[in-house]
């Protein structure tokens, strides 16, 4: 049975990957014209580049640029909020046509998307630290907990270079809150975003004590398949025109950004006139920009050898990008993800049983009002979606605790406690039901510590169903930056774009973990039933 199950699953996965491969081959620009609307992904949490105004609308430097591009292309505009983690993913799956979302140009990303030249902005990397932090060089951060935002291209580079213990959160908002609540000593992020954050009164005391590093230009991105397409050309022309006309410099001023030397240089470069009276930066016969108009600054690609080279060979031959096997950084990230998921799974099973038993014993203790109180709490707890519970405890209660007592609440602990509470509430009812049945059989039965095994034995099937469900839900910990399996996999996908392989491996491993738990409980059940005197 186990064998055939795995077979069925592998078959399903193969089918799904086939489905995924069927991306439209036609030129995207035709599809866009048919639709009449350009769909652009912009940031919602990166003021002043992309943010929400008081009405919840997306506004900022990048939404303005998007509107300008749509206008030049003669199209309507639809803005969609994206994050650093999902922007290239959404592009690849076709949910959006264009990404204008503070995307740094790296060789890595050029492999998974088409990046438009010329670039429209530049930024570097620095850290934001609270007033008291004593940091004078990057070396001071070695081995320390540093908050980071998932999907930022520099996370891995900086972690390896300075041996940072990165706490990776899923968005800028969450990283910001984590820094404020003292979950880390500094937040590693783009210098442009940190500079504008410091303009807010709440953050005026915070410092950016370290020099910016890894300066990289920002590019508009379209899908990898659109390389050399008419869409690429139209967008590149529009950006070049925005440099020439000074539109980008105006937008910079409009959004109160400090004047960047990059935009000044670019305007100069793109308006230069050659000896023949023609602009130097015009398209060559090949359709390319002349070399002197292109940006020379590029990050060097990593050195390749050994297992890594072997992995790249597999990718060239089969298209399977197994970064989590050959890339040491990804491998350790991935293995840690599996290990954390296993720990979380065990913690949730034990926690749910503990909450369930404690609740049932309290309800049956005979102390007046206690039964009603436990019953009401458990009934409400059962109706609270665990994801919301995690948000409430992590962001809401976690913040109160840190401001009152100075304790930081660990994400792993929050996830384990919330999921245990949720499943524990259902367990209480399963045990109370069992206790009622036992009372029917033996009128003198009362639920006590000693008689608990009897009730557990009777309620075995429903309780195990509850525990299996909580095991299936452990992935929710990923929403609060616990670096478990889903977080590790999506981080790898954001960096390498090997969606098909990673997501299938993730699904398979998670499924096997659930199956393993199911089997484990089946074994326990057999043992228990054998020992059962009835």
């Amino acid at each position: 049975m186990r064998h055939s199950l795995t077979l069925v699953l592998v078959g399903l996965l193969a089918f799904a990957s086939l489905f995924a491969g069927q991306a439209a081959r036609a030129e995207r620009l035709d599809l866009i014209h048919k639709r009449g609307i350009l769909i652009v992904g912009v940031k919602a949490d990166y003021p002043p580049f992309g943010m929400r105004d008081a009405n919840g609308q997306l506004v900022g430097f990048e939404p303005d640029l998007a509107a300008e591009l749509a206008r030049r292309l003669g199209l309507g505009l639809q803005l969609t909020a994206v994050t650093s983690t999902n922007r290239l993913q959404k592009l690849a799956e076709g949910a959006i046509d264009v990404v204008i979302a503070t995307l740094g140009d790296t060789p890595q990303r050029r492999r998974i998307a088409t990046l438009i030249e010329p670039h429209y902005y530049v930024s570097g990397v620095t850290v934001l630290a609270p007033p008291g932090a004593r940091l004078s060089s990057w070396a001071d951060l070695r081995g320390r907990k540093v908050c980071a935002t998932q999907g930022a291209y520099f996370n891995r580079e900086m972690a390896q270079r300075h041996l940072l213990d990165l706490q990776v959160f899923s968005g800028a908002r969450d990283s910001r809150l984590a820094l404020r609540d003292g979950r880390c000593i500094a937040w590693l992020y783009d210098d442009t975003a940190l500079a504008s954050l410091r303009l807010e009164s709440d953050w005026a005391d915070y410092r950016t004590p370290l020099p910016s590093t890894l300066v990289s230009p920002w590019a508009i991105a379209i899908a990898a398949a659109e390389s050399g397409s008419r869409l690429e050309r139209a967008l590149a022309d529009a950006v070049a025109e925005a440099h020439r006309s000074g539109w980008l410099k105006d937008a910079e001023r409009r959004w109160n950004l400090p004047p960047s030397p990059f935009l000044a240089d670019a305007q100069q470069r793109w308006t230069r006139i050659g000896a023949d009276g023609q602009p130097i930066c015009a398209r060559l016969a090949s359709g390319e920009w002349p070399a002197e108009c292109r940006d020379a600054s590029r990050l060097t690609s990593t050195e390749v050898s050994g297992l890594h080279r072997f992995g790249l060979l597999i990718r060239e031959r089969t298209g399977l990008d197994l970064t989590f096997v050959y890339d040491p950084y990804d491998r350790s990230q991935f293995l840690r993800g599996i290990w954390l998921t296993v720990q979380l799974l065990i913690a949730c099973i034990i926690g749910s049983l503990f909450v369930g038993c404690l609740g049932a014993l309290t309800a049956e203790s005979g102390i007046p009002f206690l039964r009603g109180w436990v019953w009401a709490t458990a009934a409400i707890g059962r109706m609270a979606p665990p994801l919301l519970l995690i948000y409430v405890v992590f962001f809401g209660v976690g913040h109160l605790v840190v401001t009152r007592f100075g304790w930081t609440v660990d994400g792993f602990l929050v996830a384990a406690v919330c999921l245990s509470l949720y499943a524990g509430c259902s367990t209480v009812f399963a045990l109370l039901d069992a206790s009622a049945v036992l009372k029917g059989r033996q009128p003198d039965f009362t639920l006590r510590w000693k008689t608990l095994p009897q009730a557990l034995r009777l309620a075995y099937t429903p309780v195990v169903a509850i525990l299996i469900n909580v095991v299936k839900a452990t992935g929710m910990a990923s929403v609060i930056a616990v670096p478990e399996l889903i977080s590790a996999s999506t981080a790898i996908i954001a960096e390498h774009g090997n969606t098909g392989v990673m997501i299938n491996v993730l699904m398979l491993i998670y499924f096997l973990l659930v199956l393993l738990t199911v089997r484990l409980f089946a074994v326990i059940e057999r043992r228990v039933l054998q020992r059962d005197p009835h």
Partner: protein
Amino acid sequence: MTPTDIIATLWVWTPFLAGGFLWNILISLAAMLIGTLPGIVLARMRLAKRQSLVQTSLVTTELMRNIPTFVFLFYLAFLIPVEFEFAGQVYAFPAWLKAALALSVAVVGFVSDNLYVAWRHWRAGDHAAALLLIPNWTGYLLIIVMASSTASVIGVDEIVARCNVIIAAVGRDELMLWVYLYAMGYFIVFCFPLSRAMEAVKNRMQARVTSVLSQKEGAGS
């Protein structure tokens, strides 16, 4: 923010949140419908005479039961294209439908198991016990409504995603606790009475089943 400020802000955004919650209910109903149909087929197969059919159904049911919904949600979000062209027309594959599909997997397993039991009761002439399927199915709908909050992680515009929009728009971190608690209130207020009602229906039906059984026993002895 003073408590009055908080209440005023929540009040202003209430229609927006309520609209989000309608999405949760829509997604859940869609998931129940999508999942129930294959569930019926699987349950029917389990009653078949041919062992191969029974085995296939059992394996598929166990598969459906054990697929972790939350991970499957990511799986579908990553792997199903968002738009596809068919016969010159562009069709969208909306995120809410992906969420409904992911949630429906658990429904398939649930319906297969419960309908199988109900069907056997029905065949045995025990109609009252078979009808217990109805409150059980509704009870499961509530579980799916709660699970539908996870659709926010793949960008569905439901209530939790709208909480994040509000927090970003208002720009006050201390509002987070209250917005999330308020959203939680929607789930509790919706699910609690329905779940109580279903339990009451179930208890009454069960009482009837027991009385029918005892009558039969009485007649037999």
